[in-house]
């Protein structure tokens, strides 16, 4: 039995198709990432899975239970951490945790084992009000609260948004440790660089799933030649490259531009073209595609597809 089974689920709000005909399967014990920009429909899909929203069409099962029909039986078995860390800012760290524990019919002591790794970091602040915690600490506390009743499946909706880089790294380490204990985790994020942390990922945009694969598999979807290009005048460089005859796409990726070219184009051809345009300090290297490149390509392909059809 799979942990999560989504079968052709759709959900619309006042004319906006938030989730459009999505099918997806998450296996037991997987750390599954739902990657996509803001407004892709990730949160709506999450709310359907945690029984907060009814799908307009399609069926979804979590742990073999229907999210609509069996919602009462299902609710105690899932852990849910919404996008905004849902804590009570006027309750202390300990009071928050013990409140959620009691509400889910358990105690901190009973499931302390599961949250110990995370909670030890919070313990020095256990009498502090949750509202006075840093973003990273809030995130850890919210995770503890979602874990305290020992759920079978954990749903984390953008848990790393608004958290510093160090805390993000720590957070993913925690998720890996929880995952090793056999917990199925579905996590959504807008950050492509976090995709590599997951066993499998689904790329989502405008309510649809563009691709489902392992992170390496998604990278391999990208088959065209790819170059990282840098020069002194970045803005003029992007203009010139986009106008070049060999260019398919050109996006800024940090300090480099990622250029997708027609087949059989080499770094020398690009260099010659740029020197003709009087660019200085030109740096060109062929690179292997990352998840973000794949995603950009899929998005573009998807956009063209929907425009034509």
């Amino acid at each position, binding site marked *: 039995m799979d942990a999560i089974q989504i079968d052709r689920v759709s959900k619309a709000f006042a004319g906006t198709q938030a989730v459009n005909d999505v099918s997806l399967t998450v296996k037991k014990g997987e750390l599954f990432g739902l990657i996509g920009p803001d407004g892709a429909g990730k949160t709506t899909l999450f709310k359907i899975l945690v*029984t907060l929203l009814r799908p307009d069409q399609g069926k979804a099962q979590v742990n073999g239970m229907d999210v609509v029909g069996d919602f009462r039986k299902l609710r105690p078995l899932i852990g849910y951490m919404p996008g905004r860390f849902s*804590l009570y800012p006027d309750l202390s760290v300990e009071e928050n945790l013990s409140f959620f524990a009691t*509400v889910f019919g358990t105690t901190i002591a009973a499931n302390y084992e599961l949250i110990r790794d995370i909670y030890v970091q919070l313990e020095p602040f256990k009498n502090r009000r949750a509202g006075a915690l840093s973003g990273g600490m809030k995130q850890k506390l919210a995770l503890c609260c979602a874990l305290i009743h020992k759920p079978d499946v954990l749903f984390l909706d953008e848990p790393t948004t608004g958290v510093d880089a160090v805390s993000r790294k720590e957070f993913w380490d925690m998720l890996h440790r929880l995952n090793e204990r056999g917990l199925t985790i579905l996590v959504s994020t807008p950050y492509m660089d976090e995709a590599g942390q997951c066993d499998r990922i689904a790329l989502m945009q405008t309510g649809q799933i563009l691709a489902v694969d392992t992170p390496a598999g998604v990278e391999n979807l990208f088959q065209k030649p790819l170059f990282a290009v840098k020069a002194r005048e970045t803005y003029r460089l992007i203009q010139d490259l986009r106008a070049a005859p060999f260019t398919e796409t050109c996006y800024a990726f940090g300090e480099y531009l990622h250029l997708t070219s027609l087949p059989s184009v080499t770094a020398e051809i690009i260099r010659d073209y740029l020197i003709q345009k009087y660019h200085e300090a030109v740096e060109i290297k062929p690179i292997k595609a990352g998840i973000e490149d794949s995603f950009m390509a899929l998005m573009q392909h998807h956009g063209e597809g929907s425009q034509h059809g």
Partner: protein
Amino acid sequence: MKRFFAFVKKEFFHILRDRRTLLILFGLPFVQVLLFGFALTNEIKNARIAILDLDHSQHSRQITSRLLSSGYFKLEQQLDSYKGIEPAFRKGKVKMVIVFPARFTAELAHDQAAQIQVLADASEQNTAISLTNYATNIIQSYSAELNPVGMNPPMQLDVQSRMVFNPELKGAFVFVPGVMAMVLLLVSALMTSVTIAREKETGTMEVLMVSPLTQMQILFGKVLPYLLLSFLNGCMIIVLGINLLGIPLNGSLGLLLAETLLFIFLALSIGILISTIAETQLVAMFASLLIMLMPTIFLSGFIFPIESMPKPLQILSNIIPAKYFISIVKGIMIKGVGLQYLWKETLVLFGMATVINAVSLRNLKTRLG
């Protein structure tokens, strides 16, 4: 049940840790009772009057001195002819003029009846009504003393029946039940609707909904602390009213407390109804203020008498819960009547609560949408 009490405990933490909430809960009623009880009464002291005494008799002098020694009136001007009345009013110096006609004593002796004219400046309607009532009362009690028992009173003056219960027209008697209704509505409805909306806003409601807590448990958990605190509040206002403002408690205290509890229950129901609709604290707050506070102040008879409202507003005032509660409180505290006179109002409040709760239950969702 353990879950439920954990929830109630959490609610108490919310209330007790928020200074603003505490201030609204306990500071507001205190200030309002004192404000309405002392400062904003329509009780009048030392109103300036003029007297036109064309009779110059023992009676006219006696009545004048009684009026002036009552504390309500202060003599501004002695007039000597009817012509002086209009200018006196025009200048706005006097609020009322008492006229003893020329043959006042003669008529009294001859016909056993005489007239005193009381003219009041009606540009301030409430003041005018109060002043004429005071004056009428004083004159009447004088006339009663003149008569041996069994004789017809020599001066026929109309006495309004409601003054039987409040002969001195004390402002506090009118305002305290109103303040009580207002504060209880404010605390119960506003606070509950805002705290439920707050959980929706911060996203904690999503987690609560996913938890094994039922929606009913969440609602009752929200309401119970406010029920207790509002009841405490109601008691506080009653104690303040009796001890500080001298309002009598002529009826049964048990009945008064029971009716207060019923009214709080109704107010909380309204708060829940608002919160089933409002998604944010701001919406909840505006909804509570607009549909609860304003009509309560203006249409319940708290400040403006319902009898002097235009017909459409009089009809509208029938759906204001505070109207019924105010007349219940007045009935118990001032008139000292029991349930046999107040069952109609009680039934109306009960019916309102039932209808509102039915609507809320229908709106209640186990999901977001």
